[in-house]
């Protein structure tokens, strides 16, 4: 394409009608990016506070206990970051799927698939140098997650099967299969409790801060958020995914393969969820249990939606939800408030995000 004339950029020329409107539009775009998520969280927290107050709790005290507890010392902060790690990874992956209009509700199952594969390769493979072995474990987890998700993608493009239903079903199959594995083939010998053999010590992820459990997983998560952000918004392939998600007709006109994009998007989200599962095994649990996820796959949906499907945003929303869930444990211990309050706040966050999104659309239209 040598015919394109690339001169130095012409000085921005001002036109009559729209300079003020498009400044308004750009500022509105920015407002949407930062203001709406903050507002959504505030609305959800208010709803949580109201729920607490109605049921006779002092909301202010409860929130103080939560936040104060999480940020009490280095140890509590690192424990929170251990929860943030899978949430960020899953949320980042779901940003990709949702951007391509693939409603992957199955991150939970993909997380399990990743954890199983990581455990398998960690326990049954011998003789590799530890660093290489760790990389292999994480890769195995990602591939397993991607493959588990790709099932739903392939069923969608070949049989037009709704990915919403298939991913939910695959969640159950994954958790049931895990339950079978830890009570059967992968069960630790000589133990009655359903769990797998422990990973060798050498295969544990390096610790970031001495005397804490914080491992390098959080760095991997943040790095991947940045990489996936770049992939979505700065790479050709990411561009194609987004076009397919917004307007499949235009994608076809542009020569983009809709089918390939759809499978790629859901596989990427599955890979990140699978990686989250593998990191959990290699960094925190070191062995497979029946219930290795307290619903990370579902909270991940809220993480992605609150970030308005922007991977970098998922770092912050992931940490926010990690603070809420770590805080809720403390809250339950210290103020007898059930920690499940977190789910209520998550649900409210999604509803507020949706409501603000609709509002923003209207404001966007009236601005022109």
């Amino acid at each position, binding site marked *: 394409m040598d015919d394109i004339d690339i001169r130095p950029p012409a000085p921005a020329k001002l036109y009559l009608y729209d300079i003020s409107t498009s400044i308004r539009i750009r500022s509105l775009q920015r407002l949407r990016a930062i203001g709406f998520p903050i507002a959504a969280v505030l609305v959800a927290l208010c709803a949580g506070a109201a729920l607490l107050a109605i049921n006779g709790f002092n909301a202010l005290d409860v929130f103080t206990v939560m936040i104060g507890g999480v940020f009490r010392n280095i140890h509590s902060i690192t424990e929170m970051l251990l929860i943030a790690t899978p949430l960020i990874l899953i949320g980042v992956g779901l940003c990709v799927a949702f951007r391509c209009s693939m409603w992957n509700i199955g991150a939970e199952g993909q997380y399990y698939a990743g954890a199983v594969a990581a455990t398998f390769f960690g326990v049954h493979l011998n003789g590799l140098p530890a660093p290489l072995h760790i990389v292999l474990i994480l890769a195995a987890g990602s591939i397993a997650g991607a493959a588990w998700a790709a099932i739903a993608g392939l069923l969608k493009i070949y049989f037009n099967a709704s990915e919403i239903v298939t991913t939910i079903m695959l969640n159950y199959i994954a958790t049931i299969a895990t339950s079978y594995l830890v009570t059967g083939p992968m069960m630790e010998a000589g133990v009655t409790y359903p769990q797998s053999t422990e990973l060798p010590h050498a295969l544990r992820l390096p610790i970031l801060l001495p005397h804490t459990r914080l491992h390098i997983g959080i760095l991997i998560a943040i790095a991947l958020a940045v990489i996936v952000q770049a992939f979505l918004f700065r790479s050709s392939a990411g561009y194609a995914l987004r076009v397919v998600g917004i307007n499949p007709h235009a994608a*076809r006109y542009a020569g983009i393969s809709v089918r390939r994009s759809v499978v790629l998007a859901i596989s990427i989200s599955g890979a990140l969820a699978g990686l989250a599962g593998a990191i959990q095994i290699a960094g925190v649990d070191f062995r497979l249990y029946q219930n290795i996820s307290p619903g990370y796959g579902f909270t991940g949906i809220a993480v992605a939606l609150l970030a308005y499907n922007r991977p970098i945003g998922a770092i912050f929303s992931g940490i926010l939800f990690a603070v809420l869930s770590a805080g809720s444990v403390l809250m339950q211990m210290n103020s007898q408030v059930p920690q499940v309050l977190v789910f209520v706040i998550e649900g409210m966050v999604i509803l507020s995000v949706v409501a603000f999104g609709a509002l923003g659309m209207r404001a966007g239209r009236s601005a022109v």
Partner: protein
Amino acid sequence: MNTEIFLKMENIHKRFGSVVASAGATLEVAENEIHALLGENGAGKSVLMNILCGVLAPNEGSIVFKGAPLKLGSPREAIQHRIGMVHQHFMLVHNLTVAENYMLGQGSPLRLIRDRSELCDRIRALSDRYGLDVQPDALLEDLSVGQQQRVEILKVLFQGIDVLILDEPTAVLTHQETDRLLLLLRDLVADGKTVIFISHKLDEVMRVSDRVSIMRDGRVVRTVKTAETSPRELARLMVGRDVLMELPREPVECGQVVLSVTGLSCNNELERPAVRDVSFEVRQKEIVGIAGVSGNGQSELALALAGLLPAKSGSIKLNNKEVTGMCSTAVRRLPLAHIPEDRHKMGIVLSLSLAENVILHRYTDPPFATRGLLRFGAIAAHTRELMRQFQVKASHEDVAIRNLSGGNQQKLVVARELARNPDLLLINQLTRGIDIGAIEFVMQEVLRQKVAGRAILLISTELEELLAVCDRIFVMFGGRLVGELPPDRGRLEELGLLMAGNTAEAARLAAATG
């Protein structure tokens, strides 16, 4: 005929945002007549009739019906006044039976629909009376389009209407079905009904109507008695308008053949034949126009040429290279540029920025992407350059394109397609939905491209647009190219006749003026 005014719509205005659909239309219909409403696409026929049947509310204007002013809030109220409409897109539910469709919305929601033998008998009786052959127990999705239309007509009659409005009833029908429909309309009038039917086909208007009103640009320009007019006069009234623009055109010598289509046929999405045995050539420095009322196969022709719709038979050659069966990406690399018919559906991605829309086809090509990464510097510079050259009014290339006016969106699409220096420029609807300033700008650009040596195929429903820029004009009707004419205003009537499918009359006219 009685002297009292039967139905009069006066000074009707209707605007959708900034688009004026009806600009003070006045229409008078006499009782017990077949009144045809004739006009090109976008003349405002459907809007006017949707106002009469209560679907749309006018911004201004009044309706007088049977001597009393008529104010309609909903289609239901129109039915109560015994006015009913058969819409172009049938209001029939595909997974219900005919009888169930007739029951829809009738009576209390608690009513049982089990025992419908009485209803079925009444449907059969009415169907027999007009020879419509409607089976009350048939499932809608099992019926052909022609059968569905008869079901829809009978549904409106079943509601006991006096005034029946039909919107382009023959557009979806075969030749035989059309004949049958026109006979039915006569029967209805003989039965005391009044029929208004929207059409752009001259022969059927001439055959069946008592009077014709011709619409142009949201106004009724004339109402004539069918017996006192001729297809030629109607064609002239329909297409002949004030000349919007005269673009200076320098004579250019055509170059070698760029596009050569022979015997091309293809089916539409519903697997029905849409393009039938079409052959033509487009040369360098030549603009070839394809005129025709929409729905005559032009969309499918454009998609087939762009590699987006498979050809059933025939061949497409670009620069002497066989491209039939190639995918759109391969065809584009030849290079062919394609300005699609529906901007919002295909041409742009509304929620992406201007810059992101500019690289829609070139998101993997250097310099916009290298090693798989988008190069925003190059993209932004290119976008700004296109915005400058094509006077796209937006302050920044990062603004979402949905915030631009239709004209500015289209200028960006044209700019994007031309930037690739195509050998063939395929345009379907250059000026649809854009303002007059933008129209003139893009048309001048197309002419410049011709002088610069490109071959251009311009498909349009706007005759004015074709006359202003084309070197030759084909008329497409029923999937075939039915005639070829020079862009001569003197032969407008002939064009109109061909577009309306009146080939014989057009031939006679051509011979006469010969």
